[in-house]
């Protein structure tokens, strides 16, 4: 008797279908092996909102009776495999289903797997991923983040590639033969079968020792008792520690105080919704106020010298500021994976304007590499070569590229339960 739980952490709207395909595929493959299972989304999530971290689950058990122990639950309490289908999710996730940021590997069992679809090297993933007290495996399926829209699905084979990788990492959960049979039944596409096989061959793993990774302690709090809660479903407005509605900022260069930073919810920051962040070139800012006015999350702090500094604890990365900014390249949305902290850009600029200018230039050089879906016509075509290089067969009549990629760094351990 054995029950396996797999979670797929994904971006609302952009990866809704992808996540469902993966968890459905796991169950369908398990059925091919005479097991049974369920596939479901976390009910409290809001998968119909752009970029919100959300989860889907697949539970596989030997029989229906064994499965009952995992049913009628919002989410499993621990999982054998965590799959992050967007590498920026390694910074942690915060959804409607809970309060406070939670590490991507929170539910991953000791010795379990965190599978990430990414082009980033292991060390960069580990700067984002929170350290854990127990060892676990970080596994990588090479690929660009697969983002679609609500009504369209970009079938770049990420779904089946993840299934192929699972068969490699956890053959006792799914055999490659079962994955292939399930793909044939669900999609009837031999090319997808080939993609799964490639990913099975190429998945890379690294054993992450205890304590390795992002050292940040994620926020925790205790839910209040019924008699501690305010009555009437009322929540007082957010205040600063001093009880004010906000606070002024201090210019690190001149010591001048001024501007305004509204008090914000210290528990629900929302920035894990972000896959891109605005990078502001203060040298070209004309102080037109449009970014500050139009930001749907009021995330811009007003600085003492009249600039608008996107507070990166509050920014959801929607890109409205970039869209409304009238100055070319003054606000540029950049891949969130290019950053390791939420530091104030205005303070960086104040501390060293020249260094900041160079930093901005470096960050915005790769501007188009990340987007919500597609930013312009032809972007998908541009991405195909990268995906082919990562192991996606190029299609009928085309030879798939087979240049070598990095192999397993460490042998998978016998851990897991």
């Amino acid at each position, binding site marked *: 008797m054995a029950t396996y739980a797999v979670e797929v952490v994904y971006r609302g709207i952009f990866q809704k279908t992808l996540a469902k395909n993966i968890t459905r595929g796991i169950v369908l493959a398990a059925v091919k092996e005479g097991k049974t299972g369920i596939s479901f989304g976390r009910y*409290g999530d809001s998968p119909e909102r752009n970029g919100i971290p959300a989860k889907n689950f697949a539970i596989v058990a030997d029989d229906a009776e064994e499965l009952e122990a995992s049913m009628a639950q*919002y989410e499993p309490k621990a999982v054998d495999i965590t799959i992050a289908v967007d590498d920026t999710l390694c910074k942690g996730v915060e959804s*409607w*289903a*809970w*309060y406070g940021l939670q590490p991507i590997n929170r539910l991953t069992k000791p010795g379990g797997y965190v599978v990430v679809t990414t082009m980033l090297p292991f060390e960069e993933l580990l700067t984002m991923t929170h350290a854990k007290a127990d060892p676990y495996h970080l596994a990588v399926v090479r690929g660009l983040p697969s983002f679609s829209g609500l009504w369209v699905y970009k079938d770049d084979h990420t779904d089946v590639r993840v299934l192929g990788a699972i068969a490699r990492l956890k053959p006792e959960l799914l055999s490659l033969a079962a994955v292939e049979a399930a793909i044939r039944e669900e999609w009837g596409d031999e090319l997808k079968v080939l993609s799964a096989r490639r990913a099975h061959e190429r998945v890379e793993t690294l054993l992450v020792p205890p304590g390795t990774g992002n050292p940040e302690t994620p926020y925790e709090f205790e*839910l*209040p*008792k*019924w*008699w501690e*809660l*305010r*009555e*009437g*479903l*009322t*929540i*007082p*407005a957010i205040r600063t520690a001093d009880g004010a*509605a906000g606070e002024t900022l201090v210019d690190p260069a001149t010591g001048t105080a001024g501007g305004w930073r509204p008090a914000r919810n210290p528990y629900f920051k929302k920035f894990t919704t972000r896959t891109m962040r605005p990078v502001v070139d203060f040298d070209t800012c004309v102080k037109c106020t449009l970014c500050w006015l139009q930001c749907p999350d009021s995330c811009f702090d007003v600085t003492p010298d009249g600039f608008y500094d996107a507070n990166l604890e509050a920014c959801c990365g929607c890109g409205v500021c970039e869209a409304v900014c009238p100055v070319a390249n003054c606000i540029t949305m950049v891949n969130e994976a290019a950053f390791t902290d939420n530091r104030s850009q205005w303070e960086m600029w104040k501390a060293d304007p020249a260094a900041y200018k160079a930093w901005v230039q470096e960050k915005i050089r790769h501007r188009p590499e990340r987007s919500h879906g597609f930013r312009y016509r032809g972007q998908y075509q541009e991405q195909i070569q990268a995906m082919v290089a990562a192991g996606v067969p190029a299609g009928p009549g085309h030879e798939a590229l087979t240049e070598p990629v990095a192999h397993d760094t460490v042998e998978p351990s016998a851990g897991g339960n």
Partner: protein
Amino acid sequence: MARVVEPRVAPGVEEREHEELISGSEAIAVACKLADVDVITAYPIRPYDTVMQYVAKLVANGQLDCEYIVAESEHSQFEIVKHASAAGARVFCGSSGVGWMYAFEALTVTPALRIPMVAMVGNRALDDPGAFGVEHNDALAVRDLGWMLVWVDTAQEALDTALIAYRVAEDRRVFLPCAIACDGAFLTHSQAIVKVPPQAWVDRFLPPYDRGDLLLHPDNPITVAPQVNEDWLMELRKQNDEAMKRARTVIAEAYRDFEAIFGRAYGNPFFEEYQTADADVVLVGMGTLSMPVKVAIRRLRQEGHRVGLVRLRWFRPFPTEELQATLGRFRAVGVIDRDYAFGSPYTSGVVANEVRAALYDAPQRPPVVGFICGLGGREVTVPDVYRMVALLEQAAAGTRVAPTHWIGIRE
């Protein structure tokens, strides 16, 4: 608080109550004036409409200064006062039958927000078929949702109870809405002599509505009714549960103070006992059916039958312990339901099932017989009561009697 335009008590004038010939609905409208209500919403439906007409007249005559809003539906009617109450206004609202049901979503959210709204339900049969007559199913539909529910049987009690309802609902320990159920036609549309108290007495009895830290106001910035998940809702429901429990104490306090100030005693606030001291069997019921029942009891007693009436006023909170103690004294209990609960235990009415449940843990557990009677406004007659008592006496004598009887039906 709204301000009554006329001076409340003219200097030198003695504080005395006076009499008026008004209906039960009009008595509640007078209570609204005395309670100096700030916001009233209206949408016409019989029999509730007599309240809005009378309040409109009070406003037009300059006797009451309040926002009088005619909504485009009952749903809006209840939503408007809900929000006004959150912003600190004393509010009144009401409806009947299907109008009350059309407001149902607004009715469900009102207790959760701890809104001390006072509403009148002019009890009316639910469509279809369209019928004006009284049935209690409209008000009873909210019985599990955190509304306090009280039934009255005279215009005087309607006026008094409306004042008591504000006092109880607006008590910070409670902050729950209260619906006053008035039988359509028999109470809402019958005028009787009512003692109207002077304003000064009411002011002494009813303190201003103070919403405290729950007040929706720019000086007290709060979010009301956020989305929550399974981590929160049980605790919030528990808060309402405790508020409803506390209401029992607050109701008792309110009747005590009412008696002290107004000089009118209601005895046990939760139910009236009529000729129960030596009774063998009693009938239990709510609303104006008390009239024919009392007449029948007097006649039956002349014929040697020891029968009494327990008229329930407060259905929510339900007076479980008090009823256990009282009903346990009798050899059989008959419950008259001017409502139905299709498919319920014993296919009885709502009240019969509640009384049965209340008696289950009672040390003395008399047999309970349910009577469905007076539906759709059909009169409950003295011969009907005779039939009920005959069945009750059989049950009291140990004869097996069917648990539910339809009385006054053509068969």
